[in-house]
C-alpha cells in the first residue's frame, strides 16, 4: 500500500513537472581526496528518477524543472551527497568523499594521466597503503600475500633481507622468469628495490592482470605488472607530520620440524639397535657426555628484535605539494649472522609552474646492509648442524660455550663460531630518482616526459678471518663492487575529447629502457692479522681480480585508444612495438596488442532503479604480451677469453648463440564482472585463459655440437582459471564508527603443457624431480613408494610402465620391487608442481577508535620435495647422526606394518614419500590498534592523531607439511630458513 502511494506521488510530480519550465544545469563532480573528476557519477534530481551521468571529465548536463533545487550525487565508492542549487545559478558542482570501503583509486597504470578504477576497462586490483604499512618486515610485498586474487606471493626465507616470489595466474613460462614487471612510479625497477625502500612511502600497489591493462607494457608484461605508487602531498594543505616507531621480536614460524628430533635416550637406544654401539659402550658414552641438547635451541636465536621508525612530512603550498620521509629499519635474523638494516630518504615534489606546465621530482635514496650466513642448504655447519648427537653440547659443564674450540665428542666447531669467522656483508646504496614534465598547451591535451633511474651500488665483502683457529693466520678476503643503472625514459602525448556523449582518450608514446651492470672484484688469501684485513696484506702470489659488464636495451612505441559512450559502454585498444637488444638481429622487434570492452550495466535505465543492486560492471579483453626475462647475450655466439694458455691469450667457444632467438609470446583472454549489492556486498569475478608459446627454454643440445643447452623459442603452456573476490559489511554503525568487513578471495588455476621441443611428448628436467609432459600440468616425476614389505621389512617401489612411465602412473600392487633405482623407477607421480588454489581471507573491523585487522593467506595443492627428510630420516645412510623421531617406526618383526624398512636397508630414498603436501593456511597479519579520539587530541593543541597498535605476522600456521616451512616456493627444499613469527607493537603520532 505504501509503495502504491509512493508511485502515485511520483506520477503526480511528473504530471506537475511536465508543465513546469525547464532549465539546463551543468557542473563537475570531483573527488575530495585528489580533486580529480569522477566520470560516470550519477546526478539525480532528489526524489525523482530524472538523472544523468558525468562524462570522462566529470562534467554533466541535466535538464531540470525550475522547481528542482535538491540534487543527489553518487558514485560507487563514495558517500552520496545531496546539494542544493543556489537561487539564480545554473551551475552546481559537487565534491564526493570516499566511503572508505571500496576504493575507487586513481590508477596511473598504462601511461597517460590517471584514470579511475571504475572507468578502466582493464582488470586492475589495487592494494592501499593500509595493507603494506607498519609491517614488521623490510619487504613490503610480503604483506600482499592473499590480498589480490590471482597473485600468488610466497616469501621463501626468514632472512630479514629476503624478497618474495610473485606469480600471476599460474606458471606463464617454463624457461624464462615468471616474475611480474615491477614499476615504481612508472620506472621499471628490480624487486630488490622494493625491499630497499620504506614500505610506508607506498600509496598504492596496483596489480595489472589482464591483457587490456598489461599489453601496453608489451614485451615485459606477460607475467602481469605490479605498479607501486608513492605518496604525494596535496596543494594548499598544512603540513602533516607523522612519526612512527615500532618494535617486534621474531622466532621461526614453526618449530614442529626441529622439535621432532630424537632425544639422548631415544637416539642412543636406536644406535644400540643399529649395532653401532653396545649397551656398555653407550653407558660409558653417556657418562662422559651427560647431556640432552636441543640443538635447535642453540642454532636458532630466540626473540630477535626488529626496530622500525620513520618520519614523514607532507603538505603543500599554493602550487607545490611535497612529501618527505626518512626511515630506519633494523631486523635481526634467527640464524647466526643474519640481518638487514636500512636507512631511506624520499622527497616527492610536484609543482604547477603555470597553467600549462606541471613538474614533479621524486628523489629516493637509501643505504642498506645485508648480513647473510653462507652456511646454508646441506652444509653440516649450517642447517645440517642439527644432525649433531644430543649428548654432545655446545656448552661445557660450567655453561661456558665451546667457542673457538672443538666441541668434545662432536669433533666440530660450533656453527656459531664458523659463521662468525666467515662473514658476508653486502652494503647497498640505492637511488631511485624520477622526474616528469607535463605540459598542457591547451585543454585536454597533455604532453608528458618522464625519466627515472633504478640504480644501486653494492659493495660485498666475504672473508674468513685470520683469527679463525681452524686456519690460523690464513685469512681470506674477497671484495667486490657492483653498480647497476637501469634507466627508463617515457614520452607520451594524450588527448581527451568528447563528441556529444562519445568520450575519447587517445594516447601515443615512446619509451627507452636500458640497463647496465658493471662490477669488479679482488681477492686474496693468507692474511695474517684481523686488524690488517685489507687486500694488499694478503699473499702476493695468491691474488685475483675480475671485472664484468652486462647491458641491455629496449626501444618501444605504443598507442592506446579509449572510448566510452556516456560512461556506460567502454572500449579500449592498445598497441605496442618493442625492440630489444637481447634477441637475434632479425628477431628484435615484436608487436603486441589488446582489445577490451566494459559495460557499466548499472548505468542502464533498466537497472538504475534496482535499489538492491548498487553496481554491475561486465568486462572482457584479449591481447598479447611478451616475456624477455633472460640473460642479456643469449642470442649471441660467443667465445670467452678466460682460457689463457702458457701465458698467452686463449679463447674458447663459450656459447653457440641462437641468431633466431625471439620473444616469448603470450595471448591472454579474460572476462569478468564486478557487482555490489544491498550497499554491503561486493563481488568481483574474473575468468582468464592464457597461452604462452615460443617459450624461452634452455633446450638440451646434441653433444656433438659441443654445447649442452641452447636457449630456443619452443613449447607452449596454457593456464586457465578464475579469480574471485568477495567482501561484505556484516555490520556497520556510523554513530560508533563501527564496522566488521570480512573478505575472502581466491584463485583457481590449472596449467597444462601443450607443446614441447624436439618432437618430445615429455621431458624430465634433470635433477629437479620436475616433469613436463604434453597434456599434463607441470608435475613431479619420482619413484613411487609402495610401502614396506611387512613380511621381510624390505622397502618397495612400484615398477613403472615400460615405455611411457613419464605419462602414465602405474601403482600396481603386484608389480613392486625392492631394488631402488632413481632413473629406472621414476614415473609420473600425478602430483602437480604448482598449487591450484591460492588466496586469502580475513576481516577489517573497528569500533570508535579501536580497529582490528586480520589477514589469513592460504594455498591448497602446493607440493614440495622435502629433501631435509633424506638426511633426518635416514639412520642407516647417516649412521651416528641424530634423526627424526619418525625413524623409530622401522620394521622389526614379520607381519609388522612399519613406516621404514629394516635396519639393513636405506630408510629414505628420493622417492614419492618426500613429495609432501605443503598446503597451508597462515595468519599472515594481525593488527589491533587504538586511535586516540579527537576530543583528547584537540586538548593537546598539537597532535592531529595518535595510534597505538599491536601487530603480529605469521602468528599461526596450519599445515600438514612436516618440514621447516610450507611457504617456501620451490620444487626441492633443503635446509630452508623458515619464515618468522613476529609479534610487536608500534606508536604513530601525527602532528
Amino acid at each position, binding site marked *: 500500500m505504501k509503495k502504491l502511494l509512493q508511485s502515485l506521488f511520483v506520477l503526480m510530480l511528473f504530471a506537475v513537472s511536465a508543465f513546469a519550465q525547464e532549465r539546463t544545469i551543468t557542473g563537475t563532480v570531483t573527488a575530495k581526496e585528489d580533486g580529480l573528476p569522477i566520470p560516470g557519477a550519477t546526478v539525480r534530481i532528489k526524489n525523482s528518477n530524472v538523472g544523468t551521468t558525468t562524462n570522462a571529465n566529470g562534467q554533466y548536463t541535466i535538464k531540470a524543472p525550475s522547481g528542482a533545487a535538491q540534487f543527489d550525487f553518487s558514485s560507487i565508492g563514495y558517500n552520496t551527497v545531496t546539494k542544493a542549487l543556489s537561487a539564480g545559478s545554473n551551475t552546481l558542482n559537487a565534491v564526493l568523499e570516499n566511503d572508505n570501503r571500496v576504493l575507487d583509486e586513481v590508477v596511473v597504470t598504462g601511461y597517460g594521466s590517471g584514470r579511475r578504477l571504475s572507468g578502466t576497462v582493464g582488470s586492475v586490483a589495487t592494494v592501499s597503503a593500509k595493507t603494506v604499512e607498519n609491517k614488521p618486515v623490510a619487504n613490503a610485498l610480503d604483506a600482499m600475500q592473499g590480498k589480490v586474487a590471482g597473485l600468488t606471493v610466497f616469501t621463501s626465507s626468514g632472512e630479514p633481507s629476503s624478497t618474495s616470489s610473485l606469480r600471476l595466474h599460474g606458471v606463464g613460462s617454463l624457461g624464462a622468469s615468471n616474475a611480474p614487471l615491477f614499476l615504481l612510479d612508472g620506472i621499471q625497477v628490480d624487486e630488490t628495490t622494493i625491499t630497499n625502500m620504506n614500505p610506508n612511502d607506498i600509496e598504492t600497489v596496483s596489480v595489472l592482470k589482464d591483457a587490456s591493462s598489461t599489453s601496453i607494457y608489451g614485451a615485459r608484461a606477460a607475467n602481469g605488472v605490479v605498479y607501486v605508487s608513492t605518496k604525494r602531498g596535496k596543494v594548499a594543505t598544512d603540513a602533516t607530520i607523522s612519526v612512527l616507531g615500532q618494535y617486534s621480536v621474531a622466532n621461526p614460524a614453526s618449530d614442529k620440524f626441529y622439535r621432532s628430533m630424537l632425544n639422548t635416550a631415544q637416539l642412543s637406544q636406536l644406535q644400540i639397535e643399529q649395532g653401532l654401539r653396545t649397551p656398555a659402550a653407550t653407558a660409558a658414552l653417556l657418562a662422559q657426555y651427560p647431556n640432552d641438547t636441543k640443538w635447535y635451541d642453540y642454532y636458532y636465536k630466540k626473540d630477535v628484535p626488529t626496530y622500525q621508525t620513520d618520519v614523514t612530512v607532507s603538505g603543500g603550498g599554493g602550487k607545490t605539494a611535497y612529501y618527505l620521509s626518512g626511515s630506519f629499519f633494523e631486523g635481526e635474523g634467527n640464524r647466526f649472522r643474519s640481518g638487514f638494516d636500512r636507512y631511506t630518504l624520499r622527497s616527492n615534489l610536484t609543482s604547477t609552474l603555470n597553467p600549462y606546465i606541471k613538474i614533479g621530482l621524486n628523489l629516493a635514496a637509501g643505504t642498506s646492509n645485508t648480513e647473510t650466513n653462507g652456511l646454508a642448504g646441506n652444509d653440516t655447519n649450517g642447517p645440517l648442524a642439527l644432525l649433531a648427537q644430543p649428548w654432545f653440547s655446545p656448552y661445557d659443564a660450567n655453561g661456558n660455550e665451546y667457542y673457538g674450540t672443538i666441541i668434545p665428542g662432536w669433533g666440530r666447531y660450533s656453527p656459531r663460531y664458523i659463521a662468525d669467522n666467515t662473514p658476508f656483508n653486502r652494503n647497498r646504496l640505492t637511488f631511485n630518482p624520477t622526474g616528469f614534465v607535463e605540459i598542457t598547451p591547451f585543454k585536454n591535451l597533455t604532453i608528458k616526459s618522464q625519466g627515472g633511474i633504478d640504480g644501486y651500488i653494492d659493495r660485498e665483502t666475504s672473508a674468513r678471518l685470520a683469527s679463525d683457529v681452524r686456519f690460523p693466520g690464513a685469512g681470506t678476503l674477497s671484495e667486490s663492487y657492483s653498480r647497476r643503472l637501469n634507466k627508463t625514459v617515457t614520452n607520451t602525448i594524450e588527448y581527451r575529447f568528447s563528441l556529444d556523449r562519445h568520450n575519447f582518450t587517445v594516447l601515443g608514446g615512446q619509451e627507452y629502457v636500458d640497463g647496465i651492470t658493471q662490477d669488479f672484484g679482488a681477492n686474496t688469501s693468507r692474511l695474517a692479522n684481523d686488524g690488517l684485513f685489507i687486500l694488499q696484506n694478503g699473499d702476493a702470489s695468491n691474488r685475483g681480480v675480475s671485472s664484468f659488464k652486462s647491458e641491455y636495451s629496449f626501444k618501444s612505441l605504443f598507442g592506446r585508444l579509449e572510448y566510452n559512450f556516456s560512461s556506460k559502454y567502454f572500449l579500449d585498444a592498445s598497441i605496442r612495438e618493442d625492440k630489444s637488444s637481447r634477441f637475434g638481429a632479425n628477431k628484435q622487434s615484436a608487436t603486441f596488442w589488446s582489445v577490451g570492452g566494459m559495460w557499466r550495466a548499472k548505468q542502464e535505465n533498466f537497472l538504475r532503479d534496482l535499489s538492491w543492486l548498487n553496481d554491475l560492471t561486465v568486462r572482457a579483453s584479449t591481447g598479447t604480451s611478451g616475456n624477455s626475462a633472460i640473460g642479456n647475450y643469449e642470442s649471441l*655466439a660467443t667465445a670467452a677469453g678466460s682460457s689463457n694458455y702458457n701465458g698467452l691469450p686463449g*679463447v674458447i667457444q663459450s656459447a653457440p648463440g641462437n641468431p633466431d632467438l625471439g620473444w616469448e609470446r603470450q595471448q591472454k583472454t579474460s572476462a569478468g564482472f564486478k557487482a555490489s549489492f544491498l550497499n554491503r556486498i561486493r563481488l568481483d569475478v574474473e575468468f582468464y585463459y592464457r597461452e604462452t608459446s615460443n617459450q624461452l627454454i634452455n633446450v638440451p643440445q646434441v653433444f656433438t655440437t659441443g654445447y649442452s643447452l641452447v636457449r630456443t623459442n619452443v613449447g607452449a603452456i596454457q593456464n586457465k582459471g578464475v579469480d574471485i573476490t568477495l567482501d561484505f559489511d556484516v555490520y556497520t554503525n556510523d554513530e560508533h564508527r563501527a564496522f566488521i568487513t570480512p573478505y575472502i578471495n581466491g584463485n583457481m588455476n590449472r596449467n597444462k603443457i601443450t607443446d614441447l621441443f624436439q618432437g618430445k611428448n615429455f621431458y624430465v628436467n634433470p635433477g629437479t624431480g620436475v616433469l613436463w609432459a604434453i597434456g599434463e600440468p607441470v608435475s613431479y616425476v619420482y619413484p613411487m613408494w609402495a610401502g614396506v614389505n611387512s613380511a621381510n621389512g624390505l622397502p618397495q617401489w612400484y615398477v613403472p610402465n615400460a615405455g611411457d612411465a613419464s605419462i602414465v602412473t602405474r601403482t600396481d600392487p603386484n608389480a613392486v620391487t625392492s631394488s631402488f633405482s632413481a632413473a629406472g623407477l621414476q614415473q609420473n607421480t600425478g602430483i602437480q608442481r604448482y598449487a591450484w588454489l591460492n588466496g586469502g581471507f580475513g576481516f577489517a573491523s573497528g569500533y570508535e577508535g579501536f580497529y582490528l585487522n586480520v589477514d589469513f593467506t592460504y594455498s591448497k595443492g602446493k607440493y614440495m620435495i622435502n629433501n631435509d627428510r633424506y638426511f633426518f630420516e635416514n639412520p642407516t645412510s647417516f649412521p651416528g647422526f641424530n634423526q627424526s623421531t619418525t625413524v623409530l617406526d622401522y620394521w622389526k618383526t614379520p607381519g609388522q606394518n612399519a613406516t621404514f624398512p629394516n635396519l639393513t636397508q636405506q630408510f629414505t630414498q628420493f622417492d614419492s614419500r618426500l613429495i609432501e603436501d605443503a598446503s597451508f593456511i597462515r595468519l599472515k597479519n594481525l593488527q589491533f590498534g587504538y586511535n586516540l579520539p579527537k576530543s583528547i587530541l584537540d586538548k593537546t593543541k598539537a597532535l592531529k592523531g595518535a595510534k597505538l597498535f599491536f601487530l603480529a605476522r605469521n602468528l599461526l600456521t596450519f599445515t600438514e607439511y612436516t618440514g621447516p616451512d610450507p611457504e617456501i616456493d620451490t620444487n626441492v627444499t633443503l635446509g630452508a630458513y623458515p619464515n618468522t613469527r613476529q609479534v610487536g607493537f608500534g606508536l604513530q603520532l601525527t602532528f
Partner: protein
Amino acid sequence: MKNLNKILFPLAVFTLTMGACKKDYLVTAPTDAVSSDAVFTTTTNAMAALNGIHRSLYIQYSRQEEGGQGAVNLNIDYMGEDIVNTVSTTAFGVHKWVTHRSATNGNNSFIYTFYYRIITNANLIIDNIDAADGSDADKKAIKGEALTYRAWAHFVLVQVFGKRYDAAGNNTQAGVPISNTSKVDEKPGKPRASVEAVYAQINADLDAAIASFAGATVRPNKSHFNINVAKGIKARVALTQGKWAIAAQNALEARTGLTLMTNAEYLSGFNSYTNQEWMWGSKQQEDQTTYFYSFFAYLGTFNSTANRTNPKRINSALYNQITSTDVRKGLWDPTGTNTAFSLPVGVVTNATASYRQRKFAVAGTTSVGDVVNMRVAEMFLIEAEARQRLAIAGATAEEATAKNVLFTLAKNRDANYVLSTNTGVALLNEILVQRRVELWGEGFRFFDLKRMNAPLDRNGGNATVALSGVLSVPAGGPEWQWAIPQAEIDSNPAIGPGNQNP
C-alpha cells in the same frame, strides 16, 4: 602562446631525438666473451682460439673426475690391468667395468662432451683460418694443428664408444657422429657414422694436417702440434687399424731427429714438457692449478685424499717382469714402506700400499704438472710392434728391424739389455710387455687391449675382486663399448634408443 612555444619546441626536439639518434642503441656486446666472428679476423686471434683448445685439455669441468685429458688417461688406464688401487674407491669407478655401461654415467658424458667441444672449436678454426689476416706460414701451422686436434678427438671417441676396428672386417659397425663443419646444420644432430667412415675422416684430417705442416711456422712449444706429432698420431691410428706398414713408417718418421730421455730424467716425475723425449704435452702454469681435479691429484704426489689414502700401484705381475737393472724398476715401491719415495705427507706407508708409484709427481706447490700426451718411446714401441706383426704375417725381414728398434729403447732404459733372442710371437710379446711398462699411467692400456681384441686379465698379481670389482673380462664382448650418453640420445633425433650400444 609564444612563451609556450619556447618550451614546447625544445621539448619536442628532445622527445623525438632522445635515444633515436643513437643508432646502435639496440646493439650490446658482452665483456667476458667476444663474438665468435671476431676471433678469426687475424692469425693472432686465431692463435688465441687454438690456445683455448690447449687450455681446455686441463680445466676443471663439472665433476672432480673431470680434469681434462689427464682424467681421460686415468679412465683409460683404469679400465686395464696395470693400475691397482690401494683401497676400494668410487673415484674413476670405470675400473670395476660397470658404470661405463650406464648411459647416465658422468664419465661417459664427460668424455663425449670433452672431445666434441674440442672438435667444435677446431671446426671453427679450420673453416675460418684461410680468410684471416696473417702470414701463410702461420695459417698453415694453425690449420694443421686444428686438423690434428679434430682427428685426434675423433680417434679417442671412436675407440671409447665404437666397436673395435677390425682390419679383417668391413667396419660398418656404429662409431660416433662425425663433426667436420662449423656450419649449423638444418637438421639438428648427426647419426653415428660407421667405424670405417670415422677412420676415413681421421686419416683425411691427419693427411691434410701433415701436408699443412710443410712450410708452416715452427711451433712455439710442445703444447702445440707439429708434423712429428701429426705423424705420431697417424702411427697410433694405423696401429689401431692394423695397417702395420703405415704405422711403422709414420712412427719412424715421427721420431726422426728426436732422442730418448736419460735415466736421470726418467726419475724426475713426468711433469715437464721440457723433457727432451716429450713430443707433445699439456703445459700447466702454477697460477692455473686445477686443485683436486688435476691428474697429479689422483696419480701423483699432490697432497690429496686420493693420493694419501689411495696411492696408485702397479700390477705386481707386470712389475715382476721388469729387470732389476731397468731404471723403470725404481718407479714403484714393492714394499710400500720405502721412505725414499717423496709421496705426500700422511700417505699410506705399509704393505697394503706395496707397488705404489712415483712415476708421476707434482711440479709445483699446488697440483700442477704438465701432462704427457706423446713421447719418443711410444714411437719406438709402435714401430717395433708393427714391424714384428709384419714379420709374423710373412715379411720376415722386418723381424731384425723390430729387434733393433726395440733394442734402442730397451738399452736406454736398462744398460744391461742385450739384443733380444726372441722370435715370432715371443718377440711380439716382449715388445708388448715393454709397452705396458713404458706407458704405464699414460692412458693406453684399455685402448691397447681393445685394438688387439685381447681379454682383460688382472689375475696373478696384486689385484683383488674387492679392489677391482672384476679380475677378467673376455675379449670382444659388448662391455668393451662405453654407453652413448643418455642426454645425447634424448636430444639427438639422429641417434635413437635403438642406436645405443648393445
